[in-house]
């Protein structure tokens, strides 16, 4: 009997749902928003205000419709805001 836990939605390795989905080999350039989010994350990480694992946990905690619906850097941004709020560095009132 297979007792392995059901993978969560971010655990995509081998997921048969995408068996027939082509990989698009394009690599579009990042836009200004993407680069700004990326830069913000590097600054915060170098200041010790966010770790990769904290950010990853928040990304993985996004509901599937956001996880699969938002762009890569939109997910990063939402996750960073959530980490900073949970650390008490900013409040939801500051960013809403």
């Amino acid at each position, binding site marked *: 009997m297979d007792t392995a836990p059901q993978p969560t939605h971010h655990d995509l390795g081998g997921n048969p749902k995408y068996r027939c989905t082509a990989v698009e080999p*394009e690599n579009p350039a*990042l836009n200004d928003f993407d680069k*700004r989010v990326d830069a913000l994350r590097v600054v915060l990480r170098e200041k010790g205000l966010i770790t990769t694992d904290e950010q990853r946990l928040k990304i993985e905690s996004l509901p599937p419709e956001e996880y699969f619906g938002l*762009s890569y850097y939109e997910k990063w*941004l939402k996750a960073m805001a959530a980490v900073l709020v949970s650390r008490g560095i900013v409040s939801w009132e500051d960013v809403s």
Partner: protein
Amino acid sequence: MAAREPSAAHVVLLEKLIGALTAKGILTEAEIAAKKSATEKASPETGARMVARAWTNPEFRARLLADGTAAAEEFGISLAGNPPLGVLEDTPALHHLVVCTLCSCYPRVVLGFPPHWYKSTAYRARAVRDPRGVLAEWGTMIPAGTQIRVVDSTADYRWMVLPVRPEGTEGWSEDQLAALLGAEELVGVALPKVARAQAA
């Protein structure tokens, strides 16, 4: 082709977040601008130079395979604060393909930003189940007798591939060899092709 634009709400969220952090004295716009400018320079060039040197210098090749992090530091790249770098040696009998099934872990300091396709759901899902089918989408055909090993990069350990040096490159300089290598070759979805350098 440009990356997908963010929603207006997320643009507002980004600016409010940066505004709040600036108002609290936590960071400055100048710090963000400096990192953004560094982002724009990121590319797979360092990884390409590391492979080109390994193809021409057996001592460096041994060091690269033993400790990718230390080998990258020989190129003036600091991996401080980053997970270790592992290097996977292709042979005529064994081809490596790197994926991050959980997200997008990638050795950014030597390869630049993870390509769009590397972060895609289809690549992450299929690379471990149907690697030959994925490789075929790049036109990469690995002989049936060659084993394919798929390696999952993680938040704690990142991988790049040391491909087999292509035939017809005898006597080439490191610069010429590095020109054969981009993100696709260093992740393993494509093989270095001599025609690529001639066309460039």
